[in-house]
């Protein structure tokens, strides 16, 4: 494990007025981190959108352990997705996908 960045998995609840797809979400997430921390910040964050459940409006994403605070602050600053009012709420953070699903997504 030495030299590897530890990962954190985030369960997010998306609140929006119109339907959004994965690329809209990615644009919003990357845009938020980029606005606050710049391109260098985005490159360090290691953001990856893993799953989007349109029916339940939740998203699972991954980021680096060291940039977790940065990502959480950026997600909280999102007020619109695809020019429509929206909000992103972090349901929980976990070190593994398995525990994230068990604790926050009721799997």
């Amino acid at each position, binding site marked *: 494990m030495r030299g590897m960045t530890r990962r954190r998995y985030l369960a997010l609840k998306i609140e929006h007025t119109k339907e959004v797809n994965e690329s809209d979400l990615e644009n919003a997430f990357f845009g938020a981190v980029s606005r606050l921390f710049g391109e260098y910040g985005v490159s360090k964050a290691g953001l990856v959108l893993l799953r989007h459940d349109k029916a339940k409006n939740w998203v699972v994403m991954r980021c680096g352990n060291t940039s977790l605070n940065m990502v*959480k602050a950026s997600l909280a600053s999102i007020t619109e997705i695809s020019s429509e009012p929206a*909000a992103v709420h972090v349901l929980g953070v976990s070190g593994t996908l398995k525990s994230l699903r068990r604790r926050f997504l009721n799997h």
Partner: protein
Amino acid sequence: MKKFYDLHLSVPLGNSELTKKMVRKAKLLGYAGIGISFSSSIPGEIVSDLRQLCKDVGIDLITRVDLEPKDPKDLLMQLRQYRRRVEIISVTSCHKPTARQAAKDRRVDLISFHSLDFKRRFFDSAEAELSANSLAALEIDMSHLLLATSYRRIRLLSHLRREIGLARRFSVPMVLSSGATNEIFMRGPRSLAALAYLLDVPSDVASRYLSENPLAIITRNRIKLDSSYVAPGLRVIRRSKECVE
């Protein structure tokens, strides 16, 4: 478990549907209490309806008034008018003398500033020292941080960081509030604490600004508003008819 309080929700009291949604959402987000601004022009039935709604939802309603006095004299007059009627008094000052008066008056609970009017942010070391002595807390309204974009947000972040640094140096209590005007701008306590990372406030300290500090203000003022309160350390325990010789 920690109880979180959002002392500033700008609920549109005329729009009962949105008010209900916002109160329910505050409960869902995990708040134990919400502060809603009232003014003397709001009809009594709206206030009692809101009180009932909060009771039904299971959230504590904290009555609040936002004062924007023209000068120190006006501030004193408004304080006399409202202090015995509401639980939280917040003062936004447009002039330095008014800001100084607000900072030294013990009847003021929160001092806040026009967020995007940077020339009217009067929180300097003198203001911080006065606030620390009078226990007035500095309110950091996160809605402005969400609404501002590009250069304005950059300037706001730098001003807030400087003010928070000063407040910490002089031990001025601080309170984080959402200032949300609709559901979209409402954030949970942990999200607000995460946003405070942008202001160099660690998340454990930020969560104190959302729980312990607001609770201390609410408790202090509720004791004072209680009918048995006389003066600090002095309260009525029995009245003449209840006294048995």
